[in-house]
């Protein structure tokens, strides 16, 4: 991969990020700590260089993120010096909602979707950046770069605005919001190649290492702490694994891999025979499940 791809993708993303800064009343960048967020963060730094990023970053903490992710988040915020907001749905905490006790669908609904809506309302953010890419999933392929949300954060596929040229309509009425996806036209391979080219720091979980895992439904689930109840007779085993995508820990499966450097990860990604979302248990609820979640306000 040479430089010109990134010039095109990078320039488009920077243009999108600047457009929001120039037009939104109170924008925020959603920061999920994953590789896409890391790329988005680097693009935001470049967009406003030599100035600081002129909006806060916000992490919706479900309470079930890998410990290494939280440590990485706090270190990154300190090193770069951006304003970091974290938010957890206290109703969910009070009810003890978690993926193991309540199932993945309910957990995601309360601790991610509902939490996000609460946080946006609390801070009155009118525009929120997300790191979603169109190549991730079928219903994302039709998503606008500027995705309009009706009051209550609902995504209505039929109410989306036509998006011509690089002219983004950022006008909204009270109660309406916009989700903006600067990485829309990036693919997974682009993300990895850019991380390598730019030497962008990422959570160590992306690199293969010996980690304690158990096999569930044919997937490797990492035992990050003692909150994961083991089946009778089940014993965590040490395996060389890494993550292609990071989410809540029992909901994100690891893959067996020996890729310990960015070069090896890029090579593995280009030769991959399964999509990265395969490790996301959320998408397996059936065709159209992502589309349904989005209509309810998920990213």
């Amino acid at each position, binding site marked *: *991969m040479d430089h010109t791809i990134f010039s095109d993708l990078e320039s488009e993303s920077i*243009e999108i990020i600047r457009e929001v800064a*120039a037009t939104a009343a109170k924008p925020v960048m959603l920061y999920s700590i994953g590789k896409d967020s890391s790329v988005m963060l680097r693009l935001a730094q470049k967009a406003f260089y030599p100035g600081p990023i002129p909006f806060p970053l916000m992490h919706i903490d479900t309470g079930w993120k890998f410990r290494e992710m939280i440590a990485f988040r706090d270190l990154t915020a300190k090193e770069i010096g951006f304003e970091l907001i974290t938010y957890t749905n206290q109703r969910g905490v009070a009810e003890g909602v978690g993926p193991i006790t309540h199932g993945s669908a309910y957990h995601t609904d309360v601790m991610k979707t509902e939490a996000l809506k609460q946080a946006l309302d609390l801070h009155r953010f009118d525009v929120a950046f997300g790191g979603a890419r169109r190549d991730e999933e079928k219903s994302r392929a039709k998503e606008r770069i500027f995705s309009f949300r009706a009051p209550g954060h609902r995504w209505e596929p039929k109410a*989306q*605005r*036509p998006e011509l040229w690089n002219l983004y309509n950022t006008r909204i009425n009270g109660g309406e919001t916009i989700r903006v996806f600067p990485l829309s*036209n990036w693919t997974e391979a682009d993300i990895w190649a850019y991380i390598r080219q730019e030497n962008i720091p990422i959570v160590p979980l992306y690199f293969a290492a010996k980690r304690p895992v158990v096999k569930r439904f044919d997937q490797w689930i990492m035992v990050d702490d003692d909150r994961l109840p083991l089946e009778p007779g089940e014993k965590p085993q040490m395996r060389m694994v890494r993550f292609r995508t990071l989410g809540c820990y029992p909901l994100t499966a690891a893959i067996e891999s020996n890729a310990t450097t960015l070069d090896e990860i890029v090579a593995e990604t280009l030769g*991959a025979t399964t999509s990265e979302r395969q490790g996301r248990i959320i998408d397996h609820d059936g065709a*159209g499940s992502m589309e349904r979640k989005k209509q309810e306000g998920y990213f």
Partner: protein
Amino acid sequence: MDTLRFLTCGSVDDGKSTLIGRLLYETKLIFEDQLEALKADSKKFGTQGERLDFALLVDGLQAEREQGITIDVAYRFFATPRRRFIVADTPGHEQYTRNMATGASTAQAAVLLIDARKGVLVQTKRHSRIVSMLGIRHVALAVNKMDLVDWSQAVFDEIQVDYRRFAQELGFETITAIPASALEGHNIVARDEVAMPWYQGLSLLQWLETVPAAAREAAQPFTMPVQWVNRPNLDFRGFSGRISSGSINPGDTVRISPSGVTSRVKDVLVGNSRATEAIAGQSVTLVLEDEVDASRGDVIAAALNPVESADQFEGELLWMSQHPLLPGRPYAALIHSKSASISITHIKHHLDINTGAHLAGKTLGLNEIAIVNVSFDRPVPFAPYSENMRLGAFIVIDKLTNETVGAGMIHFALRRAVNIHWQALEVTKAARAGMKHQQARCLWFTGLSGSGKSTIANLLEKRLHADGKHTYILDGDNVRHGLNRDLGFTEADRVENIRRVAEVAKLLVDAGLIVIVAFISPFRAERELARGLFDPGEFIEVFVDTPLEECERRDMKGLYAKARRGELKNFTGIDSDYEPPQSPEIHLRTIEVRPEACVDQIVHLLRS
């Protein structure tokens, strides 16, 4: 390796989704888990029997999958060792013209699908015109389903000749015809040697890998709209934007439009590093040597080729809303980074997208295209769309709903823009009003037919006259019988009716009078237009608020009865909307308050 953005057009029946699915599959962009899902989906919804239905890979939204149609623009990604591709997959039916234009607006090339059994159809011509209008110069004509015409060269040749004859008027630089079968995979990735040995040209993928991807803007003089002024502290000021044409180096002299100020480029920042050159398409931050002023929406250009500014244009307009375009109505617009208020002052003619014919028309409906004159409320830096897309494209936005309702492409500036100057007169409005011992005002009464507008207006004028004020009433009767005799009651005519009345009221206020306008004026947008003509505090909106049932009960002119019988069309409150004011200066609830008391309220406000 560069990136090619291309568009595929054609109907589901032409095998478009199958073609894209095939390209993704053959370039190994389909993962095993997606293939598993495809197998399951093929059994459930597939139309290919036991075979994989590639169309299901790309038809995204659930509703579309179930109905078997593609209703939106979907973007797909694949790469070969030579190029990276972004495919805009757009629907083909006439009601989706806007979706196709959306896909075409960012594409550098187009693949037009033709069903070999059907040849060049009306829809092929429609797709070609849209592609041409949006400025795409390279097209591939993929004659698909060759398997169903026995791989016949004669059929292919006839279609090709037919198409080239038609496309002469469209200004494409290259047209490449390729016989193919997306279902069987012939001439998609590799050239087919077996079924169609008579074809010696490129396969579709070979064409995609070699068609020119560079924008023609690259070779032009430097231009860049200012998108964001980067001013983190007093020591740094940079102008950020994406270069719309040409290239820039430190030391170049630039001129800012519309101010005309010149300076020299001190630094070119690309991301977080200094560059020795930046080219069209790159996002940069320019630091200039002088402390010059420029803001978002200004354009920085090479000093020897400055960008022109104007406020009146001829252009092409595609309408994308269910609500028709109304000439004279104010809309919001965005052209490069510049926001403005615009109105369409004249529809020259419609363009029939199927036949290319010029047709007459007073309004513009969903998916219709017209050549129009458009007036901006301020001068904007621009270039003709055919020369510089980024400086010549604009979108039209409804001011109330904020929906994107139109897409425009500038042809040229009208000379009028520079020639008319408002004459500054020495005897001012204040001087005229002062001689009458009053402040000039416009009292704009709005409300349903029969709500009591005229009654209250007449009482008010008598009261003001008795106080020695100089007044005038404009109402439907004295205006519709003369000045606006040529207008009817369609939505478009109503808009024009109000526009003229507002302009007359403005002249009368300029003459120092207190003007009372009593019109139903049902649409917020027109009332806002009227308000915008006056100085702050001069315009007083009076909402005569009488419920529809009460107006209908009074029905002094028998109009409601007629409308209910269907003898009167477009009657406000019956089959035409009334949009009540959201924050009028005066709100008169006539059921609770007698007309004399209403007049008291208004007089009180005028005195305060």
